[in-house]
């Protein structure tokens, strides 16, 4: 018992230095990209384009934060993309039924959180591997999204709702959605770094059995982690629906993989125990910057896909290599 108590503190000290290094290296990569793309096209560094990048990265950052929680427990959440679509649809249906915007959004967010609880329960009590459980809900929720809409996107949403995505704020002319992302990142960054839930999340990913035996309610923590992931996906769903003024049953398809890529570039490990919110935010920004910069420099869309794939492999490879030293 004494040994078990001593070990985490040691881990923690090492982790902090590594975390700082991770943030610095990902931020460095971002800076290099910015310099290269500015040389390719000076418009890249304009304040308008920087806001564009932040806006384009917003949904991915939000879902990647949730995915980071899940990855730290050495799980995976594949249902994110479907939750994006279906929570947007739930909110849109409520709005079309005449509910106030705020209440409709709460309905959409609660729906998302509910899927998260379901994922957690399937994994904890159903004893399903996370990959299988969330793959199952991914398909089921996508089907529900299609069924609820009968395949037809829901448009004509109230203006006050669409403003949460696009309206630029008095503060630095930044769109509302970027502020929402920022607030969510701060809240969940705090949860992961400073609260009991966060510490248990790391502990479970490092050594599940030891954590369970030391009396941590691992079941409850796992359910909370999957609920956080789905809740954040529902937020992304709100924002994406507001952005295009349309709740489409096909929205968010494949976004779960962008979330994994962002987390991993930002230092999370698919083997668990590793990952921090600031790193993930930077990781998502690297991907968004890469896409935006390549678009602005006029690169072929086919080459772009190749480059992004190579960057994901390269980022993780460099990280592994450094760690082995």
């Amino acid at each position: 018992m004494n040994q078990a108590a001593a070990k985490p503190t040691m881990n923690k000290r090492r982790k902090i230095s590594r975390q700082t290094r991770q943030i610095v290296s990902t931020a460095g990569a971002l800076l290099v990209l910015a310099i290269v793309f500015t040389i390719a096209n000076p418009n890249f560094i304009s304040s308008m384009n920087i806001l564009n990048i932040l806006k384009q990265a917003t949904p991915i950052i939000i879902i990647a934060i949730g995915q980071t929680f899940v990855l730290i427990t050495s799980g995976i959440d594949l249902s994110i993309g479907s939750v994006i679509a279906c929570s947007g649809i739930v909110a849109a249906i409520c709005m079309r039924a005449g509910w106030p915007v705020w209440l409709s959004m709460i309905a959409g967010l609660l729906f998302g959180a509910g899927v998260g609880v379901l994922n957690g329960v399937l994994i904890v009590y159903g004893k399903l591997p996370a990959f299988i459980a969330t793959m199952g809900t991914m398909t089921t929720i996508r089907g529900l999204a299609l069924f609820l809409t009968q395949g037809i996107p829901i448009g004509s949403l109230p203006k006050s709702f669409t403003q949460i995505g696009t309206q630029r704020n008095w503060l630095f002319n930044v769109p509302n959605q970027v502020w929402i992302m920022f607030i969510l990142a701060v809240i969940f960054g705090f949860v992961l770094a400073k609260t009991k839930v966060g510490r248990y999340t790391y502990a479970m990913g490092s050594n599940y059995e030891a954590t369970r035996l030391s009396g941590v309610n691992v079941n409850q923590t796992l359910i909370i982690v999957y609920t956080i992931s789905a809740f954040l996906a529902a937020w992304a769903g709100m924002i994406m629906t507001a952005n295009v003024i349309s709740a489409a049953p096909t929205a968010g398809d494949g976004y779960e993989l962008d979330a994994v890529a962002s987390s991993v570039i930002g230092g999370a490990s698919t083997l668990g125990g590793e990952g921090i919110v600031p790193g993930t935010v930077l990781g998502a920004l690297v991907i968004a910057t890469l896409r935006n910069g390549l678009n602005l420099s006029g690169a072929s869309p086919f080459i772009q896909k190749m480059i992004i794939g190579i960057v994901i492999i390269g980022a993780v490879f460099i990280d592994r290599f450094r760690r082995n030293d």
Partner: protein
Amino acid sequence: MKKALLFLVLAMLLSICTTAIAADSYTIALITMDSMDQHWLKVKAGAEEAVAELVAAGNDVKLVFDAPSTKVDSVVQASMVENQITNKADAIMVAPMDAEALAPAIEAVYDAGIPMILIDTLANTKKFQVIYQTDNGAAARTAAQELGKLLGGKGKIAIINAQAGSQTTMTREGDFRDEMAKAFPDIEIVGVQYCDGDKQKALNYAEDFMMQTPDLAGFYACNEGSTVGTGNAVDQAGKAGTIKVVGFDFSDEVKDLVERGVIQATMVQNPWVMGNEGVKAAWKLINGEKIADEEAFVVDTGVTVATKENLKDIK
């Protein structure tokens, strides 16, 4: 418990069989690529109305609709076609989701002497009587003419396409480019991006194009998702009307953007006509009439150019 379950399954099977046998008279099967896209729902609506007309005229006809629940692999669709041969459908209408994979099933229908009508997309075989489809090349050329005229024959434009791997959307891009080069040589296409029909991605790409080329004059978007995303990007950048948008396909969202003057024109296919004419052709073939002298006859159901002016008339 197990016995009860078995009994239930047997009862269900039996009921399915009896309904199949009870289908005296004529059955026309319609198999589309999926059952979620508005496009296919309109095909189905057109077919249903044609069948309703036949029934009203005193014929005993019914329509059986089937489609993969989502865009899964074409093997599922092929087996649906084969099932309809087994069920002895009197005519089969198919929108093949894969030109190669569906060809054997389509040939099997034809070889079984069942009238074979293709909808929307060709398959890699000549063994069918007639196809009702949009000539995507012709529609793309119309789009090029519309955008060219809107821009007065000069300026820079960008293309937001859907899937890079799909014959349909690549034809919409390729023939648009050819027509632009021929008819409006002073219009420069600065680039293309593929959004996979994802509205959020289309919006991001359109923003990036406006940033890359500050004097961009127009956009051409190749399907519903691309059109909605591009329209919203132009609107949010405050460039509605300044940057001209010509799109493809129709939905409530596209309609709204046309109404607000963000999208100047959109190419609207006529899936309803495809389904409607398809059933009428099926009925003729069932009754031994001919559609055309040749087999594998192609009918272009055309596109309607929807603008602010004629918006009310678009179905």
